[in-house]
């Protein structure tokens, strides 16, 4: 396969020069970071920064995992599958219901929070769709 210089292009305009420069700098910085971590005792014992230790951390990680799953389901699954306002309403409602869910409550006590979640989901879906499409003339997914 002919190279850029074979086709008469300048060697110094080759597309790989800049990524090569970035790659070299990143490799150098990564090596310094690795060496510094080892110098500071990264290989001595288990001192992982991200390790979940207490109950608060575990609850935080659970909330994070749920949020990621919900966001992915909305952005990758729901959008394009159903009308946009329906996708928004479903996402907002389920997000609120799941995160505000309190175990041990009776069915009667759940009517109000779930009802307001559904209402907020519907309002968000319709309002976002209307404002973006009709007021600001923005195309929606």
């Amino acid at each position, binding site marked *: 396969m002919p190279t850029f210089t074979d086709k008469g292009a300048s060697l110094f*305009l080759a597309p790989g020069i800049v990524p090569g420069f970035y790659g070299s700098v990143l490799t150098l910085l990564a090596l310094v970071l690795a060496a510094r971590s080892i110098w500071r005792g990264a290989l001595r014992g288990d001192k992982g920064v991200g390790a979940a230790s207490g109950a608060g951390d575990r609850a935080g990680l659970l909330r994070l995992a749920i949020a990621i799953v919900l*966001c992915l389901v909305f952005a990758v699954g729901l959008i394009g599958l159903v009308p946009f306002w329906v996708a*928004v309403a479903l996402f907002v409602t389920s997000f609120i219901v799941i995160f505000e869910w309190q175990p041990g409550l009776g069915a009667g006590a759940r009517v109000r929070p779930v009802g307001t979640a559904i209402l907020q989901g519907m309002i968000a879906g319709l309002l976002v769709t209307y404002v973006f499409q009709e007021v600001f003339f*923005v195309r929606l997914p």
Partner: protein
Amino acid sequence: MNVFDNLQMLGAAFASFASPMILFNVFWATLLGIVIGAMPGLTATMGVALMTTLTYTMAPNSAILVLICIYVGAIYGGSRSAILLNIPGTPASACSTLDGFPLARQGLAGRAMGISTTGSWLGTLFGTMCVALFTPVLGELSLSFGSYEFFWVAVFGIVIAGTLSGGDPLKGYIAGFLGLFVAAIGQETNHNFPRFSFGIKDLEGGIGLLPALVGAFGVAEVLQVMRGPAFKVVSSKVDSVIPRIGDIVRYWRTILRSGAIGTFIGIMPGLGEDTAAWTSYAAARRASKEREKYGKGSVEGLMAAETGESACVPGAIIPVLTLAVPGSAPAAVLLAAMLIHGLNPGPLLMVNTPEFLYQIVAMLIIADMTKLFFGLTLVKPLLWILLVPRERLMPVVFVLCTVGAFAITSRVFDIYVMLAFGLVGFVLRELKFPMAPLILGLVLGELLDKNLLRGLNLSAGDITPFFTRPISGIIAAITLLSILWSIPAVSRRVILLFQRV
């Protein structure tokens, strides 16, 4: 061009914004900016990025005016939650919690908000004056910049953002070069050769700046807020928010010093409002006669932080206008919005469209005055907004992020870019990699790419002009000194040496 011409252009700029529709836009945008800034989890960058989408169909000047109102409002709004919740609404307001919250606990929440309003108003006004005075001078200087100088401007931006954006400079440099690397994805400018696209057509178009920004600042923020513990409003009683003239008279030196520091930090590429606030606060504390009050509810400390961060907003716009290099993360979005709307910020701005500079000055003054109005009148409703639980706010924010990422080019691929940047941004934040250099890298990627190759081509591969041309050599030397200074062993020895001398 003389002073009279400049004043004439400023007058014409004000006159061009004197229409009911534009003023209506100013009001809702500034208010929205304050609300975005006040809500923990919503940042100025995210607000400006989302609104870039909404203002896409507006006339260029109206769109930029709305974005500046959002930017000015959001930086100010962050102090509300800093004072009342002890949680900074935006990272820029973190410094305001030090004295704002203790004042609120002493039953002086209203006075604290009054000081915040005064400091913020004066800071933006000071910075705006600097925009009017220094942009033409810097614009003139930037005309002598060639490829070699622009290459170093880009590298300097990454290095200085990495060094001073808080935390570990090494991680800052890595984040910055990662941003530059991501900017290299897609067709390059000389031969349209697709780089790192792996045959995927969407990747050949490159990574859109706005989806990436919305992901790194919006989605990552949503995930971070949902991971952390819920916040509670501590203070609900508010005394008078009317600012006291005595505070301005008493602390005029602090106001001027913080305004100058804030504007200077703003001009430095990629640093932004949080660095401006912390630096102004530290300088005020060093010079203060009431140092012992700092951290326990010092009026002077709060004034310094607020003036510094708000002066940084106009300061960050100066390099956007003169070099097309952003001074902060929200300014990076503002730069992208200017390019989207066909406005061409950069060295030729003062030659081709000098009136645009005075339109920006008028926009900043209008936004600042509107901010003052809302700061004095809308205290109670803002308190209610702070009470919205995150479980009800964050899903709506995520929906807005999705719309924001999609709307500019109507590509579903941009939603995936947003998600990827959101997840990567979250992980990087957790590992204490700063976001500002990453975003600056994304913005400066094209500038560096183009000018490195152009410079090498002009010198037939000889790298000496990168170091031997006067301006290029100076920027290179400052860049290298910044890197050396960030190495603790080196900076410690230099300090010791100076102490001995």
